[in-house]
């Protein structure tokens, strides 16, 4: 491998790597604003300028590929002076909004100003201000904070495949906006907020909810579709506040779609059934105790021929525990998986768009097929009851001729009014597990928050069921 020298250290690199990446590989940080590893290089913020021996002027590290024998200085006086000047230049028009701004605490401009900028301001002039247009339901724009890095414009063009953000006007008056001020159309709009190095584009969903330094981060896997994008749940005091993408070059790179990003909302949905419930006839679902609900669920299957429906949003461990339980207590019961209407097997799964989204809107379709469970097509003859196991995503199919329904897992009150009993289970943020994405890639995720309300993990529910006396139904 060729070698170059950065700050007196010999560094190996792959040909074609730029100096920001090469320096980062040995822990030397070069500050950047407009450079993003997932986007093309424009070298317009000038923050990454470094000194290269035998070159008369400073060079931008993001646009300079490393070369054999190159001698680079990232901490010389000239470089430091340039960083100071660039910071001052960017902050001429940046409002002192940090107490209000949602980005503060994870803001590149804030961090770099602290590390490389001056602690005082020489300008006394009034700052440039803009009128802000609404940008749709996902992104809140605050143009005053913008530093014109154009990352958002490049993201739209290169990743989201829609050229909706543009820079209008010139020079000092440049304004980043959508064409004709239209709202954002892309399904990947949340990424605008992630890549923005300042607080110009922030999430409306997260607006003023929490300061970022309070959030505890748990790496997890998105359960929004069979892609299995890597993301991070950020929570505080058992409440999930947002999900952000985690870099995984083999699956989702740096991005996450809005569906996956805001999927967490059902966890804290007011309509979610969090207490064991049994049907109270015309009165609808009635909250009850665990012991009573399990007995009610069991006895509702007495004398009936049940089938088991497993949501393909359950984890591998849960389904294995369920299979063992069925072999022991309900042997002979037909078992099917369900998830997305129309996608009953991995053959019918496909890309829903050219970026990340898949047609199967549940994460573990592949894993359930590996366990030998077939997709649900129609109710087998003679079956008149169903036990439905579900995570937060799978869509319960229409069950004709099934009179008795028992739900185990995450259910919403309006969808579950005709159920005989509901035993509340846990969503993906409340449990550990393994899922297989569409390529067969096995991914593990960890619990981020404790189970909400009285909900319990599936193995625990099965244990309660098994210990609640004679098991009803086909047993």
């Amino acid at each position: 491998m060729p070698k170059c020298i950065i700050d007196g250290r010999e560094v190996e690199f792959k040909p074609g790597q730029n100096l920001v990446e090469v320096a980062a590989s040995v822990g030397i940080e070069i500050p950047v604003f407009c450079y993003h590893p997932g986007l093309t290089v424009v070298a317009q913020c000038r923050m990454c300028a470094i000194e290269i021996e035998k070159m008369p002027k400073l060079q931008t590290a993001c646009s300079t590929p490393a070369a054999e024998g190159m001698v680079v200085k990232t901490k010389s006086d000239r470089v430091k002076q340039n960083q100071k000047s660039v910071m001052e230049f960017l902050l001429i028009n940046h409002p002192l909004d940090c107490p209000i701004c949602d980005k503060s605490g994870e803001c590149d401009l804030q961090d770099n100003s602290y590390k490389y900028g001056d602690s005082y301001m020489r300008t006394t002039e009034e700052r440039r201000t803009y009128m802000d247009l609404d940008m749709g339901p996902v992104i809140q724009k605050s143009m005053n904070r913008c530093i014109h890095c154009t990352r958002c414009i490049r993201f739209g063009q290169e990743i989201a495949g829609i050229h909706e953000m543009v820079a209008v006007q010139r020079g000092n008056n440049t304004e980043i906006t959508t064409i004709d001020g239209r709202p954002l159309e892309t399904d990947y709009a949340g990424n605008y907020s992630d890549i923005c190095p300042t607080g110009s584009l922030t999430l409306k969903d997260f607006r003023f909810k929490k300061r970022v330094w309070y959030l505890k981060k748990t790496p997890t896997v998105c359960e929004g579709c069979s892609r299995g994008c890597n993301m991070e749940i950020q929570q505080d005091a058992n409440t999930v506040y947002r999900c952000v993408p985690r870099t995984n070059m083999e699956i989702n790179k740096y991005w996450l779609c809005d569906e996956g990003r805001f999927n967490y909302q059902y966890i804290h949905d007011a309509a979610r059934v969090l207490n064991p419930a049994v049907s109270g006839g015309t009165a609808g679902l009635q909250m009850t105790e665990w012991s009573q609900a399990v007995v009610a669920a069991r006895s509702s299957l007495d004398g009936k021929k049940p089938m088991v429906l497993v949501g393909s949003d359950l984890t591998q461990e849960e389904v294995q525990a369920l299979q063992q339980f069925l072999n022991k207590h309900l042997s002979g019961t037909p078992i099917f998986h369900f998830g997305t209407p129309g996608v009953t097997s991995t053959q019918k799964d496909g890309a829903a768009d050219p970026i990340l989204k898949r047609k199967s809107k549940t994460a573990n379709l592949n894993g359930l097929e590996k366990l030998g469970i077939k997709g649900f097509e129609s109710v087998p003859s003679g079956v008149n009851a169903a036990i439905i196991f579900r995570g937060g995503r799978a869509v319960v199919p229409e069950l004709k001729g099934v009179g008795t329904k028992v739900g185990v897992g995450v259910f919403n009150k309006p969808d579950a009014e005709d159920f005989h009993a509901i035993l509340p289970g846990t969503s993906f943020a409340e449990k550990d597990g393994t899922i297989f994405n569409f390529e067969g890639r096995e991914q593990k995720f960890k619990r981020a928050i404790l189970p909400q309300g009285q909900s319990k993990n599936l193995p625990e529910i099965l244990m309660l069921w098994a210990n609640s006396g004679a098991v009803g139904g086909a047993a």
Partner: protein
Amino acid sequence: MLVKHKRGLFQRFYVVELLKGLTITMKNMLFGKTVTIQYPEERRNYSGRFRGMHYIKATNGVENCTACMLCPTVCPAECIHIEAGERPDKEKYPVKFEIDVLRCCFCGMCEEACPKDAIKLSTIYEMSTEHREVYEKDYLLEQRGNK
């Protein structure tokens, strides 16, 4: 080894010692300098930097606070609870601003951390109440004290 003094009946009344002690007391009472003050009527002068009851500073009737959460972050007693919100005349303001005074240790770090000069400690030190007190936003917004 314990030494036992033999005392007579008169000595065991301690009259002389009592009178000696009383003389010192009387001397101080009649001719000594008073160190106490008549509290509610008379008051001591405290430094302007005294850290007493909290208040939120307002400018033109609008609270300075923008709910940036730096004071609850820095508070070692974790006694400040803020909820942020939005309203037409102010991009971000505290919907809820509560100080659990019983937990407060009056270190003044909140005042130091505040970027907006909003939370302040006044020189008011008379804060005894009959029940456990949580200061709410409306109460804190009343301008008291000498700053």
